[in-house]
C-alpha cells in the first residue's frame, strides 16, 4: 500500500497550480484497465479530479519526460519516487534540462506491483486491492485471489536500492534511507555459471528481442538527440535485428552507452514486452564499476564525475578486471 493517497497529491498539485508556482502537472492517468496507468499532463484541478490516479501501478519514471517538457513555457510539477530522483539528478548532471523549470515533489514509494506477476495469478483482472502485506486480485475468470504483496513486486522494487530522495523541492511524507539491497545477487548467479551456460542464458533471453525499442525509449539515460542505431552515418545503424548477433550488438552497445550513467531505475525491464531482464546487463556494469573503481551511484549527486570519464593511475588492467569480476574462478 502506498503511503500517500491520490487526494493528497491532487491537493498539493492544486495548491501549487493555484499559487502560480507551476503551470502544469505531470501525473498518472487511468488507462483501459486499472493496471495500465499512463503518464499524463494536467493543468486544472478539475481535470485531475476526473482522471488523476495514484496507486500500485504508477511505476513510470517521469524524469525523462522533463527533457521535452521543460522546453515549453512555464514550470512543471512532477511527482518523483525515490528511484526517479536519481535519474532526475543524472539528467541534470548531463545538462539535459533546466532545473528552474521543474518543481519536484518527492513522494514515498512502497514498491510498485508487477503486472506480469499479477496476471499470472488470475485471468481477466478487474481490479487489485492493496491491503498492505497482501493484495487481493478481483478477476473475471478466477474470482478473488489473495496473495502476498511482496511476491507481486518486480525485481527492481524487491531489491529497491534507495528510499531516499536525492532531489526535491518539497517532500510529502518521511524520507527514507539508502538500502543495502541484494540487487547484484542475480548478476552474481550468472557470473558463477560456466561461459557456455551464460551464453545459452543470454541467447535465450536476447533472441526474444523484437527490437521494439521500448527499453531505449523509456530509458532516462537514453536521451540522445539522435540514437546511433537510427543514424545511417554511425556505422551501426540498425532498425531491426536480423540475427542473434545484432540483437546482442544492440543491447551491448546500449548498455555500454549508459554505463556509469544508468541509475538502475529498472524501467527497461518494466516496459519490455518480451520480459527480457535487461536490467541484468546494466547491473553488471554497475557491479563491475563498484568493484573495479569503488562504489558509484549515478545520480546520487548532481555534477559527479562518472567512472568512465575518470581514471586513476592504478586502475586494474582489463585482463585482471575480467578475472576479478569472475566468481567461478
Amino acid at each position, binding site marked *: 500500500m502506498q503511503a500517500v493517497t491520490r487526494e493528497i497529491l491532487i491537493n498539493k498539485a492544486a495548491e501549487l497550480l493555484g499559487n502560480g508556482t507551476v503551470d502544469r502537472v505531470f501525473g498518472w492517468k487511468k488507462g483501459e484497465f486499472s493496471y495500465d496507468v499512463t503518464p499524463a499532463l494536467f493543468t486544472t484541478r478539475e481535470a485531475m479530479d476526473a482522471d488523476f490516479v495514484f496507486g500500485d501501478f504508477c511505476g513510470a519514471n517521469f524524469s525523462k519526460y522533463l527533457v521535452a517538457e521543460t522546453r515549453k513555457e512555464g514550470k512543471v510539477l512532477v511527482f518523483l519516487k525515490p528511484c526517479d530522483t536519481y535519474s532526475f539528478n543524472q539528467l541534470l548532471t548531463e*545538462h539535459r534540462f533546466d532545473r528552474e523549470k521543474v518543481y519536484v515533489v518527492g513522494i514515498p514509494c512502497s514498491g510498485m506491483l508487477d503486472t506480469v506477476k499479477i496476471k499470472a495469478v488470475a485471468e481477466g483482472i478487474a481490479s487489485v486491492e492493496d491491503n498492505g502485506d497482501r493484495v487481493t486480485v478481483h478477476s473475471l475468470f478466477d474470482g478473488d485471489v489473495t496473495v502476498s504483496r511482496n511476491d507481486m513486486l518486480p525485481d527492481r522494487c524487491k531489491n529497491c536500492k534507495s528510499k531516499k530522495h536525492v532531489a526535491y523541492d518539497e517532500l510529502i511524507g518521511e524520507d527514507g534511507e539508502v538500502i543495502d539491497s541484494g540487487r547484484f545477487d542475480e548478476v552474481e548467479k550468472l557470473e558463477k555459471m560456466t561461459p557456455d551456460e551464460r551464453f545459452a542464458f543470454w541467447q535465450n533471453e536476447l533472441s526474444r528481442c523484437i527490437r521494439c525499442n521500448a527499453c531505449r525509449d523509456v530509458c532516462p539515460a537514453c536521451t*540522445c*538527440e539522435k540514437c546511433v542505431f537510427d543514424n545511417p552515418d554511425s556505422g551501426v545503424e540498425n532498425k531491426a535485428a536480423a540475427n542473434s548477433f545484432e540483437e546482442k550488438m544492440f543491447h551491448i552497445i546500449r548498455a555500454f552507452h549508459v554505463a556509469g550513467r544508468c541509475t538502475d531505475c529498472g524501467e527497461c525491464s518494466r516496459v519490455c514486452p518480451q520480459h527480457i531482464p535487461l536490467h541484468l546487463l546494466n547491473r553488471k556494469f554497475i557491479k563491475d564499476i563498484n568493484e573495479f573503481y569503488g562504489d558509484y551511484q549515478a545520480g546520487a549527486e548532481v555534477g559527479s564525475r562518472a567512472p568512465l570519464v575518470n581514471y586513476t593511475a592504478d586502475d586494474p588492467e582489463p585482463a585482471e578486471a575480467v578475472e576479478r569480476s569472475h566468481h567461478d574462478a
Partner: protein
Amino acid sequence: MQRIGVFVCHCGTNIAGTVDVAAVSESLGKEQGVVFSTHYQYMCSQAGQDIIKNAIAEYKLTGIVVCSCSPRMHETTFRKTAAAAGINPYMVEIANIREQCSWVHKDTISGTEKAIILGKAAVAKVNLNAPLTPGETPVTKRALVIGGGIAGIQTALDIADAGFPVDIVEKKPTIGGKMAQLDKTFPTLDCAACILTPKMVDVAQNDKIRIFSYSEVTSVKGFVGNFDVTIKRKARYVKEDVCTGCGACTEKCPQKKVPNEFNLGMDNRRAIYIPFAQAVPKVATIDPDYCMMLKTGKCGVCSKVCTAGAIDYKAKDEYVEEKYGAIVVATGFNPISMDKFDEFAYSQSKDVITSLEFERLTNAAGPTQGKLLRPSDGEHPHTIVFVQCVGSRCDSCSEKGKEYCSKICCMYTAKHAMLTRDKYPDTDVYVFYIDVRTPGKNFDEFYRRAVEEYGVHYIKGMVGKVSPEGKKLMVQASDLIAGKQLHIEADLVVLAAAIEPDKSARPLATMLTASMDTNDFFTEAHPKLRPVESPTAGVFLSGACQGPKDIPETVSQAGAAAAKVIGLLCKDKLTGNPCVAHSDEMMCNGCSTCEKVCPYGAITYVDKEFRMPDRTTRVRRVAQVNEAVCQGCGCCTVACPSGAMDLKGFAGKQIMAEVDAICR
C-alpha cells in the same frame, strides 16, 4: 565517388622479396574506387614520386594509396607529392606492407595475401577520406615571462632582442631573483651583481619589455598563440611612475624592526623599503604588515618626506588583463626549510647558517658589509664547517628531504670554502661531503684548486650532530676514509640546504595546465629532445623551475626558451593538425561527457539557437572543439554516447571500413 590510384612499392627486395607486388597491384586494381594501380621499385624516389604525380594528372585521381614502408617513414613524403600534384595531402593513405608484413612474414603466400588485405583496408579508408585543411589561428605577438630572476631576465631580453614585446611578472618588488643575493659566481668568481645588474638595467631600459614587479599571475585562459592572462598588481602604496627612488622615505621611516628578507632576516629594514641599491624598478614599497600608517592610521612620515608625492596609502590591488602568444615559466627555486634538520642546531644557534645566508654574509652589500663575521657576536670565525647534501639525496620515504641531488651545492660550497681561505687565511675550513659532483666546464678544476691551492679540508663523511656549547659549536662528524669520529670545535657551521621549486609554481602549473613531477618541478615535453618546452603548447620553461640548475645552465636554457618563443611569435598564424575532433551540432546532447575526458580543455559548450526539422527554433547546449587546442587523440569520440563527436582523418566510419575490409 573517389578515383583512387594504388602504388605498390618494391622497396628493392625489402618488400618484393616476400610479397608478390604484381599480384598486390593487380588485386587492388579491382577494388571499389580504384582506377589505376601499379608497382615500382622505389616509390619514395624522385622517379617513384613522378609516377604518382603523372598518374594523378592522367587519371584525375582524387585519392591515393601507397603500399610501402611504415607511414612513420614516408607518409609526409607522399603527402607532399600529392599536394604538389594538386590533391589534398590528407587524401593519401599508406598500407604498411614492409615493417608490418614483408619483414615479419617469411611466407610469400601469406605475406602477399596480408599485403592485399592491408591494401584493401587502405583503399576502403581512402574511399571515405575527405580533404582536410589544418585550422589556422592568429598569434598574439607578445610574450609573458613569469619570474624575474636571471632566467626570466635573459629570456625576456632575448625575446625583446628579436623585436617582440615581453612582459615580466615578478612577485617581489624588484627583479633580480636569487642571483642578486649572491656574492661571487663559480667557477670564474666574478661578482654576481657586476654581471647581473647591467642586465637588469637593460631590461628596465628596453622599450619592448614591461616589468610588472610586485605582481602575480592570477588566471590564465586560452591556448597557444592566444593566452588571456590576468595579472594582479599588488598595492605597493607608492606610485611607481612618480617615485624617483631617492630613498629619503626609507631613511626616515620610524619602523626600523622589519626583518630584511633580502638579507634573509640577518638585519632589519624599514616598513618602506627598496630591497637593494640596484633594484629594478628602483621604487619604494610599503610593507603593509609593518607600516604604522596602514595598520593604525597614525604616522605618515614617508608621505611628508616624499618630495615627489609618490606615497599613496589608499592604493588598492589592481588587475591587468593582457593577451599573449607564448608564456615562459621562470619561477626559480628556494632553499628548503632547515626546521626539520635540527641535529645541525639551525634553530638553536645563530651561527649555524645556510649557504645562501653565507652569501649575504660575504657580500659587500650584505648585513656585515662583506666582512665574514659570526651572526651571534660579530666575531671573526676561525673554524668553519661546511655540511653538504643537507636535505638532498634523501630516501623517497623521507619526511624532511628531497630525493634528488640539488646539483649546485658542491660548486658553491667549494666557492665559499675557497673565498674564505683566500680572504682569511687564518681560518680552518672543513667541508664534509658524500660525493663531490663537479661535472661542468672548469668545475672540477675549481674544486681541486680549493683543495690544493687553498688548503680546504675536504672530508669524506657527514656531520651527525652540532651542539652549541658556550661560544663554540661542537661538531660531531665522521671521517670515513680515516675511520674516525671527529669532534670539531667550530665557530660557524654552513649548511648546503637542498633547493626546491618556488611555492608559487604549483598553483601556476594548474592555471597553465602544465604538468609537474612529484617534486613540483615542471615537466618538459621530452626530457632529451624538448627540454625547454612544457607538454602544453605555447608554455616554455626557463631555469630552475624545471630542475636544479646553476647560472650558466639557466642562462643557456633561458636563451633556448627565448628561441622557441621567437620561433612561435614569428608566425602570423599557427597551423594545427587537421586530424581533430569535431562535433555534429545537430546530434550533440550537450551532456559535457566529452569535455570531461579532453586532456587539453579543447571542448567548450555554448548555447546556440537551432532551426529544428519541425521548423521550430530551439536553444540547445552544444559542444564546440577548439581546433587549435585539440591534439586529435579521439578520446571524446568514444565518450560521446550519441556519436556526435567524431575525429577527422580517423572517423568512425573510416575505421569501420578498415575493419570491414580486413574481415571481408
